[in-house]
C-alpha cells in the first residue's frame, strides 16, 4: 500500500479552509478584508495598514476613492449591513503607519513603455519599476492621474505624495507626449503597455494575460473596456499588466497559476444563520475615529470555515485544520529517516467520520488517518506502544478464556445468534445475560450466542492481518451454528458486520424489540432523555430511527443533541483514542458533555461509560430495559473489571445454560485504595499483570523497601515490565501500594533473571 499523491491532492481541494472570504474574492485587488477587520478590531491600525498596502500600490489614493465592489459579497450583509471596507481602509491609512523598507532593486535591461498616466498606467509603471525594469510613461496631458484629478477626493498633495513612488522606482515620465499609434514604440521597447483610457474602439486582449494577441503589446484598464471601470479594477489591471510583461520578458508561462488573479467567487463556506444581526452604527461621512473604526470592524464575521474544527475536539487539540493535517500525514508517511512527528496526531483521531458529515464538501479526515495507520503497520512504522494495550484486550476477548460460540442449549443449529459485542459484555454482563434469556424465550426460534469482539479494535489500530483473522474466526463460528441471522446489540459491531462481512445477515436487537414488544418485566423509570447517536450508526439511518422508536415505546420523551443523527459527536472511545491519547479522548467526551444538557440515552455502551467516567450522566437503552437500577447507578468499569466481567459472563452462562462447570480459578486476592485504582487505570496496569508480578516476586525475587516497608516485585509480561510495591497481609491478601511500568526490557540481572510471562 502506498500513499497516493493524486488522492491527497484531491482531498486537499475539498477543504476550503484556506479559501478567501467572499468580499476578498470579489475585490479586484483581493484586499484581505478579514485580516484588516481583525487587526482594526484589536486596535492595531499599523498591522491593518500593512495588510492593505500588501495588495494596494497606492493606498492613500484608493482608500479615498474605492467604490467597494466587495460590498455585495460581504457575508455580513446576510445579517446586517455589509462591512464598510473602504472606510475601514481609509482609517487604517489615516491612523496606521508602515515603516518604509529600503528596497534593493535588481536592475533589468529590457526596456518597457507605458502609454497613459492614469491609475492603470501608473500602477503598471510602478510595479514594473519594482521588478527592476526601466520604464517610460507617455502621457498626453500636462499632468498625471487622469480622471482622479477631476474627482477631487484625493487632493493635489495626496497625488503628489503617491507620485513620489514613481521617482523612487526610477520611472521616467514624458508629459504632453501623445502616442496615438504605438507602432514606432515597439521598435525601441521590449514591451509596451497600453493604458490610454476609454476610447471608441476598445482593444482586444487575451483574457487573464492582457496581451494583444501575437504582439509585444499589453493593454488594460479602460483601454479594453466600453464603459468606465472602477478605480480598484483599474489598479488591479495595472498590477496584472506588470505581471504579464514580466513573464513575457522572462519567457516563462504567461498564465500558469493566474486563475484567481481576477474577480472570482469563493468556495469558502461560512455559517452565518446563527449570527446576531448587526447594523453599521458609524457616522455616514468623514474619516472614522479609531473608536468608530474598531466598532465597525468588530461586526466582521471573521469568515472562516470552522465546521469540522468546531465539531471535533481532536482537530482543535492539534490546532490545525484538515488541509494542513492531510499534508502532515502525507509527509509523515513519506519520511525515510528521522523523526515522525505526526505519529501521535495520527493515532489520536477517533476515526468517527463526523468531519465528513459536517464538512460542506464531505471531507473525511478519519478515513485518511485510518489508511495512514494501516500503512504505518504495514511498513512496521507504527509505534509499538500506541495500540498494544487495546489489541491485547481484543485478543483476550477472542481467546479461549472469553470467547464463546454455542447454539441454544438442546439445539444443533441456530436460526438466530445473539452477538452482544465485547464491550457490552465487559461493561454490563448481566444485561447481556438477561437479553439473551429474553431472546431465547420470545424469538420462537433457536437463538445461539456468540461472545467476542467484532474486530474493530484491530481495524482501528491499522492491524489489517489481525482484523482478517478475527473476521475468519467469526465467520467460522457463524457457519458452525448453521449461518444464523445475527442479532447485534452494539451499533459499531453492526456497522463492522455490514461493511466487512456482507454474507452474514444482521439485525439489531432494537429491531427485535420493536417487533416483539418490550420485555415483560420492563417498567419505566424516567420521563425524559437526550438521545445520543453512536458513531457506529453514522451510516445507518434505520438504526437511528429504530432506537428512537424503541425509546418512545418505552415511554420516554426524547430531545435531540446539537450534533445529532449522522453529525453526532464521538464519545471519545472511537479510534482507540483513550488508549493512544487519553487526553484527546477526554477532550472529546467533555465537549460532548458540554454541548447539551440533561441525561443522555445511548445505545452504545462505550458512549455510556465514557460520559459516566467524565462525571456526566448517561444510560444505555438495553440496561434501561433489562436492569434499570444498575443502568443509572453503576460506575464506569475499569480495564481489569471489564476483563473479569467477560470471563465471568462466559463462565456463568456455560454453567447455567449448558451445564458446563468451569474449574474455579484460585486467584491471588488483591486490595488497593481508590487512589491506587485510578492510578492503575490511568497507567493501564491490569490486575492480571500485577498477579504475574506477585507470583514471580513471591517466588524468591522480592526486594524489600526499607523506607515504606513494602515489598517490590517486577516482571516482564508480554512487552512490558511491571513493578509493584505491595504488602502481604496475614490472611494472604496482597495490598497493592502502587505499580508502574516501562517497555524497555531488562537484562544483566544475573541469577535474578526473569522468565517472560505470557500475555494473557
Amino acid at each position, binding site marked *: 500500500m502506498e500513499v497516493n499523491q493524486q488522492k491527497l491532492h484531491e482531498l486537499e481541494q475539498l477543504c476550503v479552509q484556506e479559501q478567501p472570504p467572499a468580499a476578498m474574492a470579489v475585490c479586484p485587488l483581493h484586499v484581505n478584508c478579514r485580516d484588516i477587520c481583525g487587526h482594526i478590531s484589536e486596535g492595531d491600525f499599523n498591522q491593518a495598514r500593512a495588510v492593505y498596502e500588501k495588495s494596494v500600490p497606492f493606498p492613500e489614493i484608493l482608500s479615498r476613492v474605492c467604490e467597494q465592489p466587495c460590498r455585495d459579497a460581504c457575508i455580513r450583509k446576510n445579517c446586517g449591513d455589509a462591512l464598510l471596507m473602504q472606510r475601514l481602509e481609509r482609517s487604517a491609512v489615516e491612523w496606521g503607519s508602515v515603516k518604509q523598507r529600503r528596497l534593493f532593486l535588481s536592475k533589468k535591461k529590457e526596456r518597457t513603455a507605458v502609454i497613459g498616466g492614469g491609475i492603470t498606467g501608473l500602477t503598471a509603471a510602478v510595479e514594473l519599476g519594482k521588478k527592476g525594469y526601466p520604464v517610460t510613461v507617455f502621457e498626453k496631458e500636462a499632468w498625471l492621474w487622469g480622471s482622479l484629478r477631476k474627482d477631487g477626493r484625493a487632493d493635489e498633495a495626496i497625488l503628489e505624495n503617491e507620485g513620489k513612488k514613481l521617482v523612487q522606482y526610477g520611472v521616467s515620465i514624458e508629459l504632453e507626449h501623445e502616442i496615438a499609434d504605438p507602432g514606432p514604440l515597439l521598435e525601441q521597447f521590449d514591451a509596451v503597455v497600453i493604458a490610454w483610457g476609454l476610447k471608441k474602439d476598445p482593444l482586444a486582449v487575451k483574457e487573464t494575460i492582457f496581451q494583444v494577441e501575437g504582439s509585444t503589446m499589453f493593454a488594460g484598464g479602460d483601454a479594453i473596456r466600453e464603459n468606465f471601470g472602477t478605480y480598484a479594477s483599474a489598479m488591479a489591471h495595472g498590477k496584472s499588466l506588470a505581471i504579464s510583461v514580466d513573464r513575457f520578458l522572462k519567457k516563462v508561462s504567461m498564465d500558469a497559476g493566474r486563475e484567481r488573479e481576477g474577480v472570482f467567487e469563493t468556495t469558502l463556506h461560512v455559517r452565518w444563520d446563527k449570527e446576531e444581526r448587526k447594523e453599521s452604527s458609524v457616522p455616514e461621512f468623514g474619516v472614522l475615529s479609531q473608536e468608530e473604526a474598531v466598532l465597525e470592524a468588530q461586526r466582521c464575521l471573521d469568515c472562516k470555515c470552522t465546521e469540522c474544527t468546531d465539531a471535533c475536539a481532536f482537530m482543535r487539540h492539534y490546532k490545525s485544520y484538515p488541509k494542513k493535517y492531510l499534508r502532515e500525514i502525507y509527509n509523515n508517511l513519506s519520511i525515510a529517516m*528521522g*523523526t*515522525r*512527528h505526526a*505519529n501521535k496526531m495520527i493515532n489520536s483521531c477517533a476515526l468517527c467520520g463526523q468531519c465528513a458529515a459536517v464538512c460542506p464538501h464531505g471531507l473525511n479526515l478519519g478515513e485518511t488517518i485510518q489508511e495512514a495507520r494501516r500503512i504505518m503497520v504495514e511498513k512496521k512504522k507504527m*509505534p*509499538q*506502544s*500506541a495500540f498494544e494495550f487495546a489489541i491485547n484486550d481484543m485478543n483476550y476477548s477472542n481467546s479461549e478464556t472469553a470467547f464463546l460460540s454455542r447454539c441454544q442449549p438442546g439445539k444443533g443449529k441456530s436460526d438466530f445468534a445473539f452477538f452482544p459485542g465485547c464491550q457490552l459484555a465487559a461493561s454490563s454482563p448481566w444485561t447481556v445475560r438477561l437479553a439473551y434469556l429474553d431472546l431465547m424465550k420470545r424469538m420462537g426460534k433457536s437463538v445461539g450466542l456468540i461472545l467476542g469482539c467484532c474486530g474493530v479494535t484491530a481495524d482501528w489500530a491499522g492491524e489489517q492481518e489481525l482484523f482478517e483473522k478475527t473476521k475468519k474466526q467469526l465467520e467460522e463460528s457463524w457457519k458452525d451454528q448453521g449461518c444464523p441471522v445475527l442479532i447485534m446489540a452494539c451499533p459499531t459491531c453492526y456497522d463492522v458486520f455490514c461493511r466487512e462481512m456482507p454474507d452474514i445477515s444482521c439485525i439489531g436487537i432494537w429491531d427485535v424489540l420493536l417487533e416483539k414488544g418490550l420485555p415483560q418485566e420492563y417498567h419505566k423509570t424516567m420521563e425524559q432523555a437526550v438521545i445520543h447517536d453512536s458513531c457506529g450508526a453514522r451510516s445507518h439511518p434505520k438504526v437511528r430511527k429504530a432506537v428512537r422508536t424503541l425509546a418512545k415505546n418505552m415511554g420516554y420523551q426524547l430531545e435531540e443533541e446539537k450534533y445529532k443523527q449522522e453529525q453526532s459527536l464521538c464519545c471519545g472511545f472511537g479510534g482507540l483514542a483513550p488508549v493512544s491519547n487519553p487526553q484527546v479522548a477526554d477532550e472529546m467526551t467533555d465537549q460532548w458533555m458540554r454541548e447539551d444538557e440533561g441525561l443522555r440515552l445511548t445505545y452504545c455502551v462505550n458512549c455510556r461509560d465514557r460520559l459516566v467516567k467524565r462525571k456526566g450522566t448517561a444510560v444505555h437503552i438495553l440496561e434501561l430495559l433489562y436492569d434499570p437500577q444498575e443502568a443509572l447507578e453503576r460506575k464506569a468499569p475499569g480495564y481489569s473489571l471489564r476483563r473479569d466481567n467477560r470471563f465471568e459472563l462466559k463462565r456463568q452462562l456455560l454453567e447455567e445454560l449448558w451445564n458446563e462447570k468451569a474449574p474455579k480459578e484460585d486467584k491471588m486476592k488483591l486490595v488497593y485504595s481508590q487512589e491506587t485504582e485510578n492510578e492503575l487505570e490511568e497507567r493501564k496496569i491490569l490486575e492480571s499483570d500485577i498477579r504475574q508480578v506477585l507470583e514471580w516476586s513471591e517466588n*524468591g*525475587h*522480592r*526486594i*524489600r*523497601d*526499607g*523506607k515504606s516497608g513494602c*515489598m*517490590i516485585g*517486577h516482571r516482564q509480561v508480554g512487552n512490558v515490565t511491571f*513493578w509493584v510495591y505491595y504488602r502481604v497481609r496475614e490472611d494472604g491478601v496482597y495490598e497493592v501500594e*502502587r505499580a*508502574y*511500568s*516501562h*517497555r*524497555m*526490557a*531488562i*537484562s*544483566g*540481572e*544475573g*541469577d*535474578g*533473571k526473569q522468565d517472560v510471562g505470557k500475555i494473557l
Partner: protein
Amino acid sequence: MSEKYYETWEFEAGSLICDRCGVPLEPGEIVLHYMGNDFPILMPKCPVCGQGFIPEELAYGKIFQVEQALEDK
C-alpha cells in the same frame, strides 16, 4: 554521571534489601533494551544474585522519553 552509563540513580545505602539474599542492593550495571538498542545503566542491584531495581521516576521519566523517541524514528 559516569561516562559509561546512560543513567544513574542516587539512593540511600541500605534502604533497599534483596529479600532473597538478605543483603543491601548496591550500585551495579543493568542493561535496558529497546528496538535493537542497548542502554547500560547504573542502578541498585543485589551483589549476590544480581536482581536490580528501577525507580518510578526513571520509568516514567527518561525511559519513557527514550522509548517514545525510538518508536517515532
